[in-house]
């Protein structure tokens, strides 16, 4: 399955897109077992796209969870997002009953475009509470996100002036900005991003936002914003199936810092309150108001240009000037020992751009915040029965919040996160199998972790799905997806039943008896575009 990237795909069968795929829909139909679910994991690239079919009264109830990929990755497995959405249209007959976006990141969203979603209608749309326009906290979070995004983008532009010395930082920031802004370009175009956001910072123009709007606007039966804990949610048309939101958490500490208390006297002006704002003011330079200036009185200051300008000499040129400036003013260089001269006052010791690296951290924080803002859902097929756990890109911060509350089930006792995980037979692995998105622990740990999943009778059925294109991830710096240690742990726990976006079913190896493996394979159907997996109730 894994191939070298080849943009000039010579596949002819599917060239005509939707129509061809539609004609094969009969054999590619997604039919759930009675009372159960059929899961189609699309081989969309390094990203998430799942179509679930729950058993309904007359016809299956279709649920879409995310639709996106990291640009460049589909070429490694020879698929396109258009083929995926064409298949979705064909299989669902053009109507998705519930569309879910777990969080606003490129690799979960960029397949959702007007052209890809042409002639697709949506019943309900579900988002995390962080998207709720009526939630003050959510609004404050989004405003902060927007402010940070602009700051990072501006800092990135200034950092780019550093040329080769800052190229690494710029590259890292670009990589992170691409997540937040979306689109399908392989190389992040900062200039275009800056233009589209504009000086006012209307992040609404980003491709991520457009995809979010599309899902929200098409919802015929309304939009739901899910909050963790409390009560379960029903899937319309699929009786008996209940949905338990586990995350994203509402962080009270953060809430406190974002929402000033009443009568505090400071007003609601974000002003210079935060470190981020102070940094931002400096990034903006002249436009930043009072806070872009030095914190010290004028008498102590020497303007940059005055210190290092043409024809200057003295302390600053001697100790901070570049070699050209020094050559012009110092004629006694030869008197210095050459070994000393090589390092004394050299240009490589300057720090003109180092302060802007703070923006890399800001970008990383944003990325982590968005991942931790993932909507994590546990689907229970029947009361007290099997559970599917879709962890989106939840990282540690999200995982450890799952135990912060419980669910009431209406009739009986409280349901805990540990109970839901113990019944989990399918785990959509967090964040492409990265190191901090599947927590390690034991049954006795006081936080949710892999060991909590699939206890007792459920253990024999445990299956995992990793959304990763390994060969592509290896081309990226710092993307060890999936992490070998996590994949090994999953293979062990699931006795080989671990699907991965780039892996053919034929290449999977069972780790238990042949009977068990054959039984598992009966519920699996492989295709170049997806893998189907059936779970009986």
């Amino acid at each position, binding site marked *: 399955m894994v191939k070298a990237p080849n943009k000039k795909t010579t596949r002819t069968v599917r060239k005509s897109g939707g129509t061809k795929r539609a004609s094969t829909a009969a054999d590619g139909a997604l039919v759930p077992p009675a009372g159960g679910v059929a899961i189609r994991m699309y081989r969309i690239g390094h990203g998430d796209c799942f179509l679930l079919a729950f058993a309904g009264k007359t016809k299956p109830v279709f649920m879409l969870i995310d639709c996106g990929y990291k640009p460049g990755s589909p070429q490694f497995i020879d698929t396109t997002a258009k083929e995926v959405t064409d298949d979705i249209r064909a299989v669902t007959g053009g109507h998705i009953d519930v569309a879910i976006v777990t969080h606003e990141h490129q690799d979960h969203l960029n397949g959702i475009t007007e052209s890809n979603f042409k002639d697709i209608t949506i019943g309900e749309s579900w988002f995390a509470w962080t998207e709720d326009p009526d939630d003050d906290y959510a609004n404050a979070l989004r405003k902060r996100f927007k402010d940070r995004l602009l700051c990072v983008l501006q800092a990135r532009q200034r950092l780019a002036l550093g040329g080769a010395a800052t190229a*690494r930082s710029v590259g890292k920031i670009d990589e992170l900005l691409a997540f937040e802004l979306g689109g399908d370009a392989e190389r992040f175009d900062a200039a275009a991003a800056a233009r589209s956001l504009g000086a006012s910072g209307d992040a609404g123009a980003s491709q991520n936002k457009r995809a979010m709007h599309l899902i929200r606007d098409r919802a015929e039966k309304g939009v739901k914003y899910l909050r963790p804990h409390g009560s379960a949610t029903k899937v319309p048309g699929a009786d008996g199936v209940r949905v338990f939101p586990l995350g994203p958490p509402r962080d009270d500490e953060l809430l406190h*810092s974002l929402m000033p208390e009443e009568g505090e006297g*400071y007003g609601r002006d974000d*002003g*210079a*309150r*935060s*470190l981020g704002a*102070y*940094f931002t003011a*400096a990034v903006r330079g002249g436009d930043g108001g009072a806070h*872009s*200036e*030095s*914190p*010290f009185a004028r008498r*102590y*200051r*020497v*303007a*940059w240009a005055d*210190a290092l300008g043409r024809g200057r000499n003295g*302390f*600053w040129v001697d*100790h*901070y000037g570049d070699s050209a400036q020094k050559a012009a003013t110092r004629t006694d260089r030869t008197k210095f*020992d050459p*070994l*000393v001269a*090589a*390092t*004394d006052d050299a240009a*490589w*010791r300057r*720090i*003109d*751009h*180092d*302060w802007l*690296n*703070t923006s890399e*951290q800001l970008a*990383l924080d944003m*990325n*982590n915040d968005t*991942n931790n803002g993932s909507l994590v859902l546990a689907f229970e097929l029947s009361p007290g029965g099997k559970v599917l756990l879709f962890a989106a890109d939840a*990282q*540690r911060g999200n995982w450890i919040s799952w135990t912060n509350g419980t669910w009431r089930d209406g009739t009986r006792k409280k349901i805990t996160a540990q109970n839901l995980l113990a019944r989990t037979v399918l785990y959509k692995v967090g*964040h492409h199998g*990265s*190191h*901090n*998105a599947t927590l390690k622990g034991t049954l006795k740990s006081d936080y949710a972790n892999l060991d909590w999943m699939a206890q007792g009778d459920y253990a024999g059925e445990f299956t995992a799905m990793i959304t990763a294109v390994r060969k592509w991830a290896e081309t990226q*710096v*710092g*993307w*060890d997806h999936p*992490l*070998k*240690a996590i994949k090994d742990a999953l293979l062990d726990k699931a006795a080989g039943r671990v699907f991965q976006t780039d892996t053919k079913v034929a290449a999977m190896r069972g780790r238990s008896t042949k009977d068990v493996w054959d039984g598992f394979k009966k519920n699996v159907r492989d295709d170049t575009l997806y893998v189907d997996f059936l779970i009986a109730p």
Partner: protein
Amino acid sequence: MPSTTFVPTPTQRKLRIFALDPSVAAQYDTAGIGELTIAIPWEDLASGPIGQYLEVVDVDPASGCMYHPADLDAQHVLAQNGLAPSETNPQFHQQMAYAVAMATVVHFEQALGRVALWSDHIERDASGNVVGHNFIPRLRIYPHALRDRNAYYSPDKKALLFGYFPAGTTDETNTRDTIVYTVLSHDIVAHETAHALLDGVHPRFNEPVNGDVLAFHEAFADIVALFQHFSYPGVLRYQIALTRGNLAQENVLAQLAQQFGKAAGRRGALRDALGGFDPKSGKWKARAPSVNALDGVAEPHDRGAILVAAIFGAFLKVYRARTVDLYRIASEGTGVLRAGDIHPDLTNRLADEAAKCAQSILQMCIRALDYCPPVGITFGDYLRAIVTADYDLNPDDPYGYRLAMVESFRQWGIHPDGMRSMSVEALLWPTGEEAMEEAAVRGYTDALRSLFTESQTPRATDSRKIKTGPLDVVKPWNLDSDRFQTWRGVRHNATALWTWLMGNGSALLPALGLVLDRDVPATVFKNNIGLPTLEVHSVRTAQRRSARGGVANDLVVEIVQRRRGYFDAEEQARRDKANQPPDGNGDFRYRAGCTVLIDPVSMTIRRVIRTTGTIRDNAALERMRKFLTEGGGDPDNAFALKRDVLRAAEPFAMLHRHEGS
């Protein structure tokens, strides 16, 4: 010049600093200890200040300006013990950075008995090949480099970068929106300077090859900051008087230590291992040591905190033992003090004992640096280094410092791998004789003698035709040495030693864990006659007390070999077996070797400190690969993989930012 006024050159320069940080100085009840005058060795200073070791260059790129450099040699400044402590005068910031960093350098030099050198600047050509090592005369200090809650040492720029930021909230000590300057915190300046000094001794200690290396760097920097602080009796005197009733409970000092960290605007993560506020009682409580403390703790600061706690524990043990008599005297033998303030004389004596004790512990910790393996230090190695270094300098140990260290480390679950005993004597690194016997090397004394008596000429087969004289021990490297000449001497000695090792000295190699066979995995770096490369990194002198009480100097030599490592174990196996050495440098570098201490007078090897495995050792290489490929350094960050630290431009910036969040 007033040539008729006869005055000797001053020995000290007195400079005023904030004792902790400005917030403490601004509180009414701690105003008495807010400021401090410290004495540092006299040197002529240029504006900046710029001296022999340090250069303060105050540029603030975020604000687009520079700040006029302070002239500490100006008459009026000298007459007032430097500029008055001030948050609003950047020139005072320059002075404080200089004063505290210089004080740290002095502690370092006193402990090691020689002048300190900063790590070399490694010059590379456009394609990244090393073209030369350059001497760094001065560490640069940028007091206002960043608008961030961060401060770090940059190994690339040989500079300390300090940030400033607005206080986030209004609380007892901070007013919102006022600016906090990290350069005004004594502990932060000392911490960052300690990073730079450690890098000067062990440039390889910022390569994370196991879970302890980065944690050690952080812990060491914190230990230096903490104990340097405690070595000022004035600060302790005030606190000891204030808390007289609690003094019998040792946790007062631990709490103090932690508050220093907090006041500095840091989260104090490193020192959280010392204790915390108990939510039930609302009182501070020392954390009890636990032998399982290190289990599952991977994050460098959390791990480093445990090392700090272990060393602090040793400090408390000795402090208690040294003051118990004072309590008896003051309480007429009962050991129970009467109510009310304690006598000022007792306060002074207690503070002096605490300061002395802190000074001793600090020196033990610094001296141990000469007794560490050249790469991949573990906490267990460090314990052995502390014990051996102290044993070699002070064979008698009347106050039981070594025992206190060993006991405290044991209580915190830190022990060297594979030790069959945790007694002081078992923890000493093997002597040359023991190592030679163990490796069945005979007749090594003659070979060693030739190092000092013969001119070192390489064997005819060697590619590097370097002729040098005998190892140059004539020029001592002590506290009076010229640093540049010292640096040159180190390089000369390294060449001589390398030549000897390739010739007469090669008989000793098995005992040192070094390999000079053709029959090694193809991934081992080799010279152009097909033998594994030997790199002699540093030849420096370490002080030791001789049997008759005099001070003797040992030569400390670090020798390292390297091998290409690959993240993929199968690729490693394939390339190891190949006939040809692979192109390129592999995914990571596995290094092995040893540190050897040689007594040039008796011409014997005093100590042999080997890395866990040799360059052949596949198991040690596998451990390193596992460490680099499994999991991340920072559990809250999806992209912080440990192996990325290998590539990071600013390894300490990454670590410190986390601390400030």
